[in-house]
């Protein structure tokens, strides 16, 4: 038996009784197994841009108003034939294998754990925002309340308690699948295998090796989008300093 539970939502609920039985596995057997490497698969075909993940994350992580660790960017795409449809890009920290935010940090506050999660040590962070500049995905920001670097943590406090990240938990369409890349039997392992050759990551040319994978992602949304922004035409909240 695998020492680490599959944390995709359906599998998690389905295997609740097994979790209890798993506690009886001898410690030695657990120690011999390779640790988890957390990742997320986003099936954009299932995303309806309801922003439940955005709000779930903001509430779970007590983010100040106007700050977001994840958000679903939403696009109206019109084809040359005149058909218009909705495209989405759920955005979050990509927990890269080669995170450009780590080497630039002048105080070593950003680090990558053995389980693949990239975190910020808030005690050490000086709020210089160098990591904000280095991130190719605009995933980082300076928290308006703390004045320090902030980003998605894959809800590390939840996964340590055996729970799913808040955005996965709240996704009504089941578009976000979270799990252990090292476990081929996990939901994310199976889904990635089934979609082999059809998954993609954001800005692969950046060489960061993201651990957030996408299925059904519109090609032109994988980087900077050459298009108009309705947001720029609307009112936006402003902050009077941190």
């Amino acid at each position, binding site marked *: 038996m695998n020492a680490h539970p599959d944390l995709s939502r359906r599998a998690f609920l389905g295997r609740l009784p097994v979790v209890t039985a798993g506690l009886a596995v001898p410690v030695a057997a657990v120690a011999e197994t390779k640790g988890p490497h957390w990742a997320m698969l986003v099936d954009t075909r299932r995303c309806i841009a309801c922003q439940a993940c955005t709000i779930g994350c903001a509430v779970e992580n007590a983010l100040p108003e106007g700050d977001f660790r994840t958000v679903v960017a939403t696009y109206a795409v019109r084809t040359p034939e005149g058909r218009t449809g909705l495209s989405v890009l759920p955005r979050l920290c990509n927990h890269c294998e080669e995170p450009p935010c780590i080497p*630039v940090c002048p105080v070593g506050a950003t680090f990558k754990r053995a389980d693949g999660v990239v975190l910020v040590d808030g005690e*050490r962070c*000086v709020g210089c925002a160098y990591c904000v500049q280095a991130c190719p995905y605009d995933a980082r*920001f300076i928290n308006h309340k703390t004045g320090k670097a902030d980003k998605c943590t894959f809800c590390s406090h939840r996964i340590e308690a055996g729970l799913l990240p808040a955005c996965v938990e709240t996704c009504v369409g089941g578009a976000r699948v979270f799990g252990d890349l090292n476990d081929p039997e996990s939901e994310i392992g199976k889904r990635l295998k089934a979609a082999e050759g059809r998954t993609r990551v954001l800005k692969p040319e950046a060489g960061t090796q993201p651990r957030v994978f996408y299925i059904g992602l519109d090609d032109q949304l994988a*980087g*900077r989008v050459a298009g108009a*922004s*309705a947001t*720029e035409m609307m009112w936006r909240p402003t902050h009077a*300093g941190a």
Partner: protein
Amino acid sequence: MNTTVEVLGFAREPGWLPWAVQYFFLIGISTMAFFLSLPGLLWRRAGWEGLSRRALLAALVCGLAAPLALLADLHQPGRFLNFYLHTNFGSWMGWGAYFIPLYVGGLLAYAWSALRANRAGLTPAALVAGSGAVLVLLYTGMETMIVAARPLWHSFLIPVFFAVTAFAGAFGMTALFEALAGRREAPALNRGLRLGQWAVLLLVAAWLLLALSGAAPYREALATIQGGWTAAWIWFIASTALTLWLARGSSLLLPALFALHGAWLARWLVFMGGQSVPKLGATHAAQTLSLTPDSLLGIAGTAGLCLFIYIVLTSLVRWDEPAKV
């Protein structure tokens, strides 16, 4: 080709605030003004004494104000201690935490030796300050250049651009202090101003050539300059040419002010303009100046601090007195 409209967009606010522009502006001018002080004060070249003393004043005013602007960008100045408690020597910014005190300390020792006619201490102090100045110019350029996520910054021309605009700005600041001291003309300063403006124009031309030839990341960087930022870049080029024209005569004040404006605008365009470009999506970060500490009040406050240091230094030291070394 599809037409895309970002219905629900998401733009990150600039992480480096106008404080950063102030810091890069002041520290760049200070380092270059320090070099401008060497001919008269260290090498004792005839005719350079007065100009070099004014350059030293410019280096001190800007060099003492710059670190405070940098501390303000940390949101909580006391955090600077972590730079020394947990230094990451793999980061250019981590090294910068050591280069700044090296330079400012060396500059103070150099100024003390020069003004107290302490010939024995002058050369070692100049060596320390000179090393610090080179390292500060190196780290400020490199920490910006290595940011691959921002096409406008990710160019080997950026450190050169900062150095050249700082060179022009140092002549501008020294000329301003000359004008404030009542001097009507200083041909050497106007020659330096012209040289600086020519260098800036050549550098911008080289950058544009690279962008138009399709070289990465210059082409992408050029494509990201849109709307008001395009107008601002055009004004930067035009005002540089105007400074060049103004500096052809003997007048000091106007070319000096324009040169300072150019050195500041160069950093505003690179930092605030560069950060306005989204890395994902289509929504640009809105950049508006407001009456807050992180915006206009910060800029005005830094200028006020420079004025305060200028008043203190000119009250305590007679800068018109010929150098004794």
